[in-house]
């Protein structure tokens, strides 16, 4: 539905895997930041005169 590959991530992280959690968060943040903002679903207020 118009969302780029690489914007959506899935991962299994156990509550005991703190290191993996940090890695995943960093990877996801970097990947999404590289793609830039996605404003398709941002609702713009109608312009009122």
């Amino acid at each position: 539905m118009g969302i780029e590959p690489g914007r959506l991530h899935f991962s299994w992280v156990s509550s005991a895997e703190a290191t993996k959690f940090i890695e995943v968060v960093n990877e996801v943040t970097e990947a999404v930041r590289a793609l830039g903002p996605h404003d398709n679903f941002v609702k713009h207020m109608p312009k009122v005169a």
Partner: protein
Amino acid sequence: MVGYTDKIREISERLLKEGTVDMVIGFRQGSMPMMNEPCFAKRPEDVEKLTWDSNCGINLANYLTDRKEKIGVIAKGCDSRNIVTHIIENKIKRDQLVIIGVPCKGMIDRRKITSMFETEILSVAEEDGKVIVKTGDAEKILEKEEVLQKNCAVCIHRNPVIYDELAADLVEEQKDIDRYADIREIEAMSPEDKWNYFDDLLSACVRCYACRNACPLCYCPTCFVDESQPQWVGKTTDPIDTKTFHFLRAYHCAGRCTDCGACERACPVGINMRTLTKKLEKDCFEYYGWEAGLTLDARPPLDAYKPDDPEDFIK
């Protein structure tokens, strides 16, 4: 398929007379051509109203939700699959139902036929795979094959999958059908093109929710679009709100949708929202080998965990 009517009436009358069921849910002639409407026959004399032709596209499983009576229900292939889904989801009990199976040869697309004529259509009749359409000043004979509803043209489950009585002999299923050509075309688009495609597809939507109301899967007491605390989605016809509604509704139908076409048929502006539900239907088939409503003995894929579920997308 026109000959089915007598048999349907005969079975319904017998069931009502014997008291096996409290009512029979079927179809009666609508007030306009090609607009048959649901009919609840509660007395043996009511069965005269029941009818069957190629305009019975409404999914009658929609009228079974949470019913307490004993019901006879007319079911074509897709209806029967939705009845199975209803039973699996505890919306009705199997022993409450007498399913009168109707082997289906497809429903006709009233929008397509209407668009072929400039004046109002006064009557539509059927004979031997032909559809005879009469307007005030003309009469035209169409091949039924060419005016089938889009979902019927690619249907591979025309026979009811579950039934107690049959209104006619089973029909031959369509083989070698490419069900998903249109979906593959959209899948191949770039994210931007996809967005524009859906933008265009849904731009005519007036948020009347006819698709949701016609859908047998949409039986939530309060739909997420009607909730106001919390308000999940805006209630306006803003394109973002409209897309959110359609995308989410489609997801709610994942692994449950039988592609009966009730949503598209009910839409007053002719939006093909089946594009969305069909993509999820395709995914369910390709990932889990699942087709909704074929058996009472298996749980739907989103309802059950299997160690070998595909998980390539999980990193």
